[in-house]
């Protein structure tokens, strides 16, 4: 089967990869570009571990065909930090012990970023619903929600 060439932007950098027509964007990110931060927890869009921003919109990369990324702008967890400076979400997850095994963490960080990009002062309920597409089996979500609240406050202070 001939492969499709895709040109896009990944974490701010121009990127090119070859993919199969029915390959998921998650597989292309992980296997073709070796960006393994996004995880496959289910492959059916139910767990959110593969969350990315596609043109700024929260997306399960396992539900997108890789060729659909043509010309699009992709942000993965690897693109959250600016050089050595962690994103406030990353910092607050660390300081708030908002991760245990860490396999869902990249997806939560991306989903939380999508929320805070559009709603800088979310309520606890808004945070809980914004993260409802992301499964975490370790934490019970308590410290994750607190970390997002804390990061929102930090972002508001520095805005």
């Amino acid at each position, binding site marked *: 089967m001939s492969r499709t060439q895709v040109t896009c932007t990944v974490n701010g950098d121009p990127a090119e990869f070859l993919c*199969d027509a029915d390959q998921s964007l998650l597989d292309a990110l992980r296997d073709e570009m*070796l*960006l*393994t*931060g*996004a*995880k*496959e*927890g*289910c*492959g*059916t869009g*139910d*767990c959110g571990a593969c969350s990315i921003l596609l043109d700024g919109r929260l997306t399960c990369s396992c539900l997108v065909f890789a060729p659909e990324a043509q010309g699009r702008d992709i942000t*993965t*967890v*690897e693109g*959250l*930090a600016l050089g050595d400076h*962690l994103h406030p979400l*990353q*910092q*607050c*997850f*660390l*300081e*708030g*012990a908002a*991760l*245990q*095994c*860490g*396999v*869902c*963490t*990249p997806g939560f960080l991306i989903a939380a970023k999508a929320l805070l990009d559009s709603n800088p002062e979310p309520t606890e*309920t808004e*945070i*809980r*619903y914004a*993260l*409802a597409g*992301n*499964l*975490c*089996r*370790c*934490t*019970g*979500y*308590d*410290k*994750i*929600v*607190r*970390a997002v*609240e*804390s990061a929102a*406050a*930090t972002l508001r202070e520095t805005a």
Partner: protein
Amino acid sequence: MTTTEKKTSKQGSSKPASAKKSGVGAEPASARSAKGQYKYVGTRPVRPDGLDKVTGRARFAADLVLPGMLHGHVLRSPHAHARIVSIDTSAALAMPGVKAVVTRDDFPDAVPGNPVSDVACNLMARDRVRYEGQVVAAVAATTRRQARAAAAAIEVEYEVLPHVLTVDEAMAAGAPLLHEGMFTRGVEPAPTQPSNVAMRSYFEAGSLDTGFAAADVVVEREFTTKPVHQGYIEPHAVVADSTQEDRSVVWCSSQGHFRVQQQTAKMLGWEPSQIKVLPAEIGGGFGGKTTIYLEPLAVLLSRKANRPVKMVMTRDEVFRATGPTPGTRIKVKLGARRDGSLVAGKAWLAYENGAFGGFWAMLGAWCVFAPYRIPNYQIEAYDVVVNKPVNIAYRAPSAPMAAFATETVLDEIAVELGIDPIEIRLRNAIKEGDPTVLGPPCPRIGLEETLRAIRDCPQYRAPLGPNQGRGVATGYWFNIGEQSSATVHLNENGTAIVLTGSPDIGGSRASMALMAAEELGIDDERIKPGVADTDSVGYTDTTEGSRTTYATGWAVVEACRAMVVKLRERAAKMWGVDVAEVEWRDGAAHHTKGANDPLPLAKITAKAKSTGGPLAASASLNARGAGPGFSTQVFDLELDPETGLVKILRVTTAQDAGRAIHPSYVEGQMQGGVVQGIGWALNEEYIHNRKGVMENAGFLDYRIPVASDLPMIDTLIVEVPNPAHPYGVRGVGEVGIVPPIPAIANAIA
């Protein structure tokens, strides 16, 4: 009560502690204040593996790529029970890119009834398949797509057999047998006919007749529960490289890489030393990654293909073929006097084991009455095989179902007698020195302290609205110690490497660093904790039974203490004094006769070459005295009378940690356990159709709790130090999952 030191710390529920830029909890070592007698233990630093996990750099098994690597895929049984008539792999092997196929013919013979053989048969069926999803063959090919296609091209002829799906079906007279050679263990005289009952366990004390005759109130109820899955977000994954002539190197997601080594070797008929296992970061386990599934398949495929092989399960495979916790049927009868004191208890427990015999009902028997003093009791438990995936541990395995029965019956007695539910539990709580079902007298425990912590918490007295209810329950888990090893190396600049053999599933590296910091007297930021492979550290049992911070932490303490002996010797040498004149405190050697200025650790390591060479120390131990853990929880919930929807409004959980080494991760264990229990109580169950095929093998239909289902989970850490451990640690990983099911039931009742 016993004279115990009691402290509680609290985390509020309504809002984050602060919205300061400095964050929500962690502080650098320099800014942390000493807590009680310790400088590092009990503080909340950022976890050592955290940065890699928030940046996507942490390497899980599925992230690994090796040169020349192939992809493996498994063919699984579509039938709940069938004889395998034939397997034809010729079409698959002829497909482009297919490099190896393994079937039952590639594995040594399995001896029926031998536990290792049961594991072996579970992950590669021999004469028959005993559940939908059991492995029949595995393929390695150059791409995942090709491996999947080749697996589908393997032709298997089955002769379908009748199946059983519940303990009732399996125990019925004339039920189809899963194993013709299964004769119930634990029955005297030994049965002459095979059955689906793998084992009977029996415990008794006093006289049931006398006990129930003395009771003013007797309540008997029956309970059924369905299998539920551990639900870790990371599917099982392995990369095996068997291209060396006499060795295989395995990277995998496991709670116990030494067990992977040993079980894989036994299954293949290899020596353990022929298999080196490197622990990848593990994306959750909760007991479900305490056995092997893919590893021997990948090792053998790699050997046959002479190239590395990666295998990753899909979520569908995880549900169908890996470990749920048993479905059960349990009857509990309790008798109490008018004052609430229990006088008699009778329990009958039957636990599904899945397709091969286990000991899950036995564990249920150990736990069912464990929190209470009951002078007269009888406990009878049956481990039963059914045509479902083989059950494996899930967080305090078997305890939640047993507690569901006892805690709800006890609540009913409390209501009947008009006694507060906490008071009736306090009246019957076991105390230090009381006899236990397992034999040895009860050690120092924190049960009453958790009960009082809940009784005194604000939630217990908060007003309830219409259609709202409140329920409490207590949970018990026995915890284990077992074998652990640790190694400490000091670098020339005074930093330290602390290696253990315990995969870190909940933050244990942070705890290891804190205990090492306390012992050596250097900042935990100067300590790099790691999980070493099977070649690089002494044998260590699996991360299970809430044992790691307890047992492996103890090994770290002992290794550090051995290191301190060496540091004192080196200082004595540098000073030219007798080592008896050197003592170690605050990270420095002190000359007790005062003639020399203290020598900080880094000044000793800087001179290590000239004072005797590198500084390394190890310790290995078999930790006894883990001591049981207790959790008491209160749930407030609201029931929609029209839809039956239950909304959890508030939860407070109080748990005895002995000593919380890193309180944030103790809270994390408590909160995670509570929420898993909520899922079990309200949402989760395996649904099998009449053909024995699982109908909800995905996260859409098997619904684990999400953030919007839940409130904050308030935690009260109770610290009743465990006298057996250098820092008083008690395992905290599991018991939190025990109370939610009965507490929610009690709130609804």
